[in-house]
């Protein structure tokens, strides 16, 4: 593969992100490698948000006046943008929420009230984000439910071969991450969905970390529920998406009560609206949802998933080669396919110290448990450093990272003048 055209495009796209041309307080260029935590925003997203607030802002759904009609139209068009982005059958299947976390809670509470029976079981995996663990624990506390996490292969992928053993007559849901935010490994979701379909078990897909790297079509990957967060997809904070396949939206009760999710309220009895309104009580994140559509158009039309896949594959090979060259560095989870996310540790350097060290080089990586404590427990480490890339990262940034890691090894392992040992 000749990376030159890819590199040229990456350099061009990078110019769309104002934050990336900023200097770090150390005077060095800012190297942003914390993309799995949140992505940076292209200029079109920032400008669309300003433009909406400065020229189109109004509350939606309840006004006959011009601004309100416009805002309503834009908001519902944003829903259609998400619908087409995911290949959903109708806009009714798209619910705007704050983010993936709220999305999973919404689904979990709906299932608690209208679907689960005490003693039911949910299959998850060892690499779930806390957002796909704690909502189920909250439901489990009330019902109870049993949570069964699938183990990992030694290379850090979900071990699907364990699936038949995990199945029981009480299995009522498989809730699983598409791409691990901790390790970057990609779950063999096609196999899992086929297995689930064969046993008539609904599947919830946490697509937070996959949808930023690959296109997802819910017709080809027929999951029942899917969630992602706007802020990780180059969009604003405060907005995310639940895809809820028909007729789940008809079956599940509402999540929050309030305006816009009702047909008729009386003190005696309230009738709820059909989906998606049923699940969107109160004033939603109007500007954020509208601008999420801008971000999606930017990704699909300006950047393109083909480019993302090709360029990130190139960066992936480079990153792994560079990391492997650092003495004492352990990479956790090297399975492929994967997203461009890696957890690692360097012998004798706590990740927290490494994070501070890299920051002094202008390099932003995340250190800690990444909301993956059960995964950390499984790996037997309290924390890791995590490198996560986006299509605007450049090979020279990875080179700088390697240099900095080598410097860290030297710094933290330097011989010390003997101090008196009291």
């Amino acid at each position, binding site marked *: 593969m000749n990376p030159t055209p890819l590199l040229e495009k990456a350099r061009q796209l990078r110019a769309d992100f104002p934050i990336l041309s900023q200097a770090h307080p150390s005077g060095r260029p800012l190297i942003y490698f914390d993309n799995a935590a949140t992505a940076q925003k292209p200029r079109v997203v920032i400008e669309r948000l300003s433009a909406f607030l400065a020229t189109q802002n109004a509350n939606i*759904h309840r*006004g006959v006046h011009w601004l309100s*009609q416009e805002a*309503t139209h834009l908001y519902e068009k944003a829903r259609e943008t998400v619908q087409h982005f995911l290949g959903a059958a109708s806009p009714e299947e798209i619910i705007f929420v704050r983010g993936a976390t709220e999305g999973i809670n919404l689904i979990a509470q709906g299932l608690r009230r209208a679907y689960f029976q005490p003693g039911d079981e949910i299959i998850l995996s060892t690499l779930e984000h806390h957002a796909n663990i704690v909502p189920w624990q909250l439901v489990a506390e009330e019902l109870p439910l049993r949570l069964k996490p699938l183990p990992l292969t030694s290379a850090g992928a979900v071990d699907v071969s364990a699936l038949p053993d995990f199945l029981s007559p009480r299995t009522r849901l498989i809730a699983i991450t598409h791409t691990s935010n901790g390790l970057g490994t990609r779950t063999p979701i096609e196999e899992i969905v086929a297995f689930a379909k064969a046993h008539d078990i609904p599947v919830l897909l946490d697509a937070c970390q996959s949808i930023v790297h690959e296109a997802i079509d819910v017709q080809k990957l027929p999951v029942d529920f899917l969630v992602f967060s706007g802020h990780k997809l180059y969009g604003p904070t405060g907005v995310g998406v639940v895809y809820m396949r028909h007729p789940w939206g008809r079956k599940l009760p509402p999540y929050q009560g309030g305006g816009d999710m009702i*047909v008729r309220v009386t003190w005696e009895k309230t*009738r709820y*609206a*059909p989906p998606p309104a049923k699940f969107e009580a109160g004033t939603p994140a109007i500007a954020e949802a509208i601008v999420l559509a801008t971000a999606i158009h930017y990704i699909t039309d300006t950047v393109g998933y083909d480019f993302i896949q090709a360029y990130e594959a190139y960066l992936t090979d480079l990153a792994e080669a560079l990391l492997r060259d650092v003495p004492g560095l352990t990479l956790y989870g090297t399975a492929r396919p994967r997203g461009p996310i890696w957890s690692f540790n360097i012998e004798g350097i706590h990740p927290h110290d490494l994070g501070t060290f890299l920051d002094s080089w202008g390099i932003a990586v995340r250190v800690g448990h990444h909301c993956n404590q059960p995964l950390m427990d499984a790996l037997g480490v309290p924390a890791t450093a995590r490198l996560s890339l986006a299509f605007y990262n450049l090979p020279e940034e990875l080179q700088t990272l390697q240099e900095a890691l080598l410097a860290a090894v030297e710094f933290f392992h330097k011989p010390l003048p003997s101090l008196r040992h009291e």
Partner: protein
Amino acid sequence: MSSELESLYQEIILEHSRYPRNYGRLPQPTHHAEGYNPLCGDQVHLTLQVDGEAIRDIRFEGQSCAICKASASVMTSLVKGLPLSEVEQLYEAFHALLTAEEPPTFSHIAPKYQDYLLAFGAVRNYPMRVKCATLPWHTLHAALHESHHEPVSTENL
């Protein structure tokens, strides 16, 4: 006065909203349905006498805006006595008039109905009002085709 507004509130519409035809309830309807627009509170209650393949009689009741009331008045006037197949045709024509990308030509609709339907043509320029005009028609459709207990809501449509 804006002429756009004049074309929305044509005299046929103002007149029918002020003096609605077929207002009330049939004592022993064979079909009935209730329509509701939760966004503005428009409400339409339809009672029908369907006999064999045609609507023999029809009445509407309810609190609603001028557009909705005129639409219900015009609709009940048009469909009274009509075979169900023609009702269906009118329902679709009306729906297309207000919501289709390209407004329909109405060439297949009897000319005597066309003026009445076309009076609502300007509603398509007021997206938040489209549901006001279509609510009576959706309610009619529901009365004829669905056996449900919940009222129709324009939110379902």
